[in-house]
Each structure stands twice: as C-alpha cells, then as structure tokens.
C-alpha cells in the first residue's frame, strides 16, 4: 500500500477515538449548554421555552452568586499566597542543604493522598469538641475556633485544605524551573557585585516567569472550580456560607432542577476563565517588554 493511502487510514484509525470522545463529551455538551442557557428547561421534561437572556440577567442579580464568587476569591487569594510560599520553599530547597530530598518528599506528599480521605482528616483536625487544634486552644486558655460553624471562617478552613494539598505540587514545579537556570549567570553576577535580592530580581525571577504564569492561571481557574471540600465537608453550609460558584451551579441543577439557569451560570464561568487567561497573558507579556 502506498504511504499516502496508509497515512489516511492511520490518521483515521488513530484519531477516530480521541476526536469522537472529545466531540461527544466536550464539544456537543458545550453546544447544548449554551443552547439551554437561553431556555427555561428544567433538565427533565421534554418541553421548554426560549426566554432570551433572562437567565443571564438573573445570574448577575442573584445575591447568593456574589457570596459564592467572594468565596472563590478567597480560594484565589489563598492560591496566590500558596505560590509565593512555594517559590520561597523552592529557592531554599534548590540550594545545597542537608535533608533536601527528605523535605521535598514530605512537602510533596499531600498531593498524592486521596482527596476525600484528606478532607475527612481535616474535619477531625478542625473538630470543635475533640479536634487537636481546639484541644490546644483550650489548654492555652483561649476560645476554641468554630472552623466549620462560623460563617466568616468556614471558607478559610476549606481553602486551607487545598493550600495544604497543592503547596508541594507548586513547589516541585518551581524547583525544576530553578534547576533549568544556567548557574553561570549567578557566578557572573556575583563577580559584578550583585546582591541576593538583585540576583532574584534579574536572574531567578525571569528564569521562572513561565512557570509562574502557568501556576497563576492554574491557581485562578482552579479557584473558580473549587467545590470538592464544600461537597464533602460542609454541603455549602453553615447556611450558604461555603457555597462556591461551581457548588452553586451543581446545586441549581441537581437540587432545584433549574437547568437553564445553571447552564447560563456555567457559560458565564467559562467566559470568566477565558477572560482571566487573556488578561493574564496581556499583563505578563507587557511586564516582559
């Protein structure tokens, strides 16, 4: 068989499954989602009406949505701090020191542990009556902290679990970025009399900027997708204090059968993620010039 004919057959065979899967479970659902976002479909009954953009108007007038978004913002800020700490740790562990491998292994460890099991472990640590943190607070003669039942605190308690889990992951990425920087640059700058802050500003930082860029995008889009801890531990409570955007969407369609509205929120979320990615690109590109 000629190579041209072979190529056609091979491309068809090799790309059929991935493309079919993506069309069926990514593109088609996305198209349907956009379509349903203009209807009042309840997700069950066959008949529904087109209601124009009123779902979208509702999205921006719903107070609960703003509470949820504020909670996503908490996740984003925590994610930002996580990156700063990760860079700090990476710089430390990239230098010569005893126990580097041990520290790296331990700090990375939470990333591989089962998410659900980790969440339950934290529910114990945070427990009001028996949790070790509050036992310690009582022993020190302080008020115990209501990690889950205080609506001002709950989202920070949940976001910290994700901080604990992802810190090592970001750190490993930064360490390998640091290792790709040419050590001669540091030597040359030492000869020129640069101090460590200048070295960080002019050598280290530009060397890891691409990873920072990627990590910030992951932290931001990840924070918009946060919902795991809320589903497992608080069911969005107390009241609605630990609702996140995605939790709210899942709630709207699974509990209230408000499918058209949930679809409109989903579309808005995707648009927000794309806009953030775009803005970030612009800001960072400008910073580089």
């Amino acid at each position: 068989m000629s190579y041209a004919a072979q190529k056609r057959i091979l491309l068809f065979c090799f790309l059929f499954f991935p493309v079919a899967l993506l069309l069926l479970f990514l593109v088609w659902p996305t198209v349907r989602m956009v379509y349903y976002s203009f209807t009042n479909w309840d997700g069950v009954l066959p008949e529904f009406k087109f209601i124009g953009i009123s779902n979208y108007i509702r999205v921006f007038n719903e107070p609960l949505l703003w509470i949820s978004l504020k909670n996503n913002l908490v996740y984003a800020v925590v994610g930002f701090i996580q990156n700063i700490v990760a860079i700090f740790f990476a710089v430390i562990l990239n230098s010569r020191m005893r126990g580097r491998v041990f520290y790296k292994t331990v700090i990375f460890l939470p990333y591989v542990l089962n998410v659900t099991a980790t969440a339950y472990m934290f529910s114990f640590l945070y427990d009001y009556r028996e949790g070790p943190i509050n036992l310690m607070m009582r022993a020190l003669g302080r008020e115990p902290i209501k990690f889950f039942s205080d609506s001002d605190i709950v989202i920070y308690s949940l976001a910290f679990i994700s901080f604990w889990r992802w810190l090592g992951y970001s750190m490993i990425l930064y360490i390998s970025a640091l290792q790709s920087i040419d050590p001669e640059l540091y030597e040359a700058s030492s000869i020129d009399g640069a101090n460590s802050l200048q070295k960080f500003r002019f050598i280290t930082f530009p060397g890891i900027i691409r990873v920072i860029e990627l990590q910030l995008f992951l932290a931001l889009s990840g924070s918009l997708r946060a919902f795991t801890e809320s589903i497992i531990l608080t069911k969005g409570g107390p009241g609605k204090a630990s609702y996140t955007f995605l939790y709210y969407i899942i709630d709207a369609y699974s509990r209230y059968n408000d499918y058209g509205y949930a679809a409109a929120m989903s579309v808005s979320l995707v648009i927000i993620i794309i806009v953030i990615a775009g803005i970030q690109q612009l800001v960072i590109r400008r910073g580089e010039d």
Partner: protein
Amino acid sequence: MVAARKENKVKEISIGVLKHIPVALWSIMVLVPLLMLIFISFKTNEEYSHTLPIMPPKSFLNFSNYKRTLIEGRILKSFVNSFILVISGSTLNVLISAMAAYCFNRFDFFLKKCLYSLFIMTAIIPGALLNVVIYKIMNIFGLTGTFGAPIILYAIPGMMQIWIYLQFLENIPVSLDESAMIDGASYFKIFTTIIFPLLLPATATVLITQSIFIYNDMFTQYLYCSATHLQTVTTALMAFSGQFATTFNVMASGCVAVMIPTLVMFLVLQKYIMSGLTIGAVKM
C-alpha cells in the same frame, strides 16, 4: 584576614540553619496530622476519648477499627472497584493519547490546528459543568449504572498527556521513521515497533499521574459510582462517613486504608511522579 574568614563562616552556618526553619515547620504541618490519623485509627473508643490525639495508641495491633471499616463499611470491596477504574481508565488514556500525539507530531493533515485546539479546550472547560448533558448522553448509551461511564470519561485525553507525549516525540529523530520506511515498514508497524517502545518513559509518566488522578478524583465517581455495587474508595468513604460520623477513630482507619495505595506508589515511584509533573508543565 583569618577573623574575617571566620566571621564569613559563622554567617554561612547561621544562614544554613535558618534555611531549615520554614521547610522543617511545614514538614511538621504535613506529618503531624497524618501521624495523629494513624495513631487514632488504632485506638479503641475508650482510648480515643481519654487520650490526646498526639499520643500513640496502646497497641498498634488493635485492628478492630480496620475490621469495621474494611468489612462493615465495604471499603475493602471498594478497592477492587477503584482499581478497575484506575487500570482501565489510565490504560485507555495512555493508548489514545499516544496515538493522537503521534499523528500531531509526525503528520500534516486537513483541520490539524482545529483538532488540536479541541485538546486545549479540555484544559479550559471544567468537566464538572458539562455533566448534566454528559449524564444524559451516557444514559442514551446505557452506560449509567455501569463502570462504562466513568471509564470513558477517564479515557478522554487531556492537554497535559498530549503535551508530555509531544515533548518526547520531538526528541525521537524522524530519520528513524524514514529508515524503517526504506525497509518497507508500514506506518502502523513503525508506531508499534519503534515509536511506542521509545515513548516508554512518557507512557510511565502519564500512566502514573493518571492513576493517581483517577484514584483520587471525587466528582465523576460521586456522580456515577454511588450505587452500592459500584462504590469506589472515594464514594465508599463518603457513604461511610454518614454512618460513623461520631466515632472518628473508626473513620480514621478508613482514611488511612484509602490513603495507603497512592502513598506506597509515591514512595516507590517518586522520581517518575515528580519528573512527570515537571515535563508536563515546565517545558511548555
């Protein structure tokens, strides 16, 4: 001169010690909760309510909590289900990703850019959002209530896997393909006998990271594997927590048991896991 050198040395040592403080503190933050969890999982109810969490249990041979979670809580059974998902999901994912990446790397074809951007979409649109529509599609194919639905969802190649394979493919010289073509080998044969074996390190990386992802993933299993006979470790643990929320020593044994497989995998395959993440992200 000597004094100055000595002073420098002192400064160096003190910086060396200072460097340990932050990383050591965080290591404690990681290890102490896990240690407490393990300790508690071996404590009897009596012991649990009368000793501090940080104290080791009287006996590390008290497996009564494990007996309850693993057998009564059906967690032992759920391991089998989790492994079915992990093995079939990650194997399919590897095969499909490798084949797709091979096409993108070695050939030019109609709509190539367009198809490629489909893979980028997977990184932008959260899968959890699409699940109401996906659930209906799965229903049409009769896949809900079986392992078919989660396995298919885990088999879909993501941006990360394609990236890792493309990185490795770029380092395999095209001249290898060409010399095989002179010998009359077909493209299919080139892929199966030359390219795929050379991609083994990439395959190991994708296989491991994907296995950890599937084992730990919550949402897909929460949607499709909540029925008793489909329970995975994740959903079994969630069901179990409803029953035994008040006695945390029992719950702790479930958590420890569920954490063990990936923990062992990590300790054995540490190098692959860390380098895998790096290839996927840093070289972009």
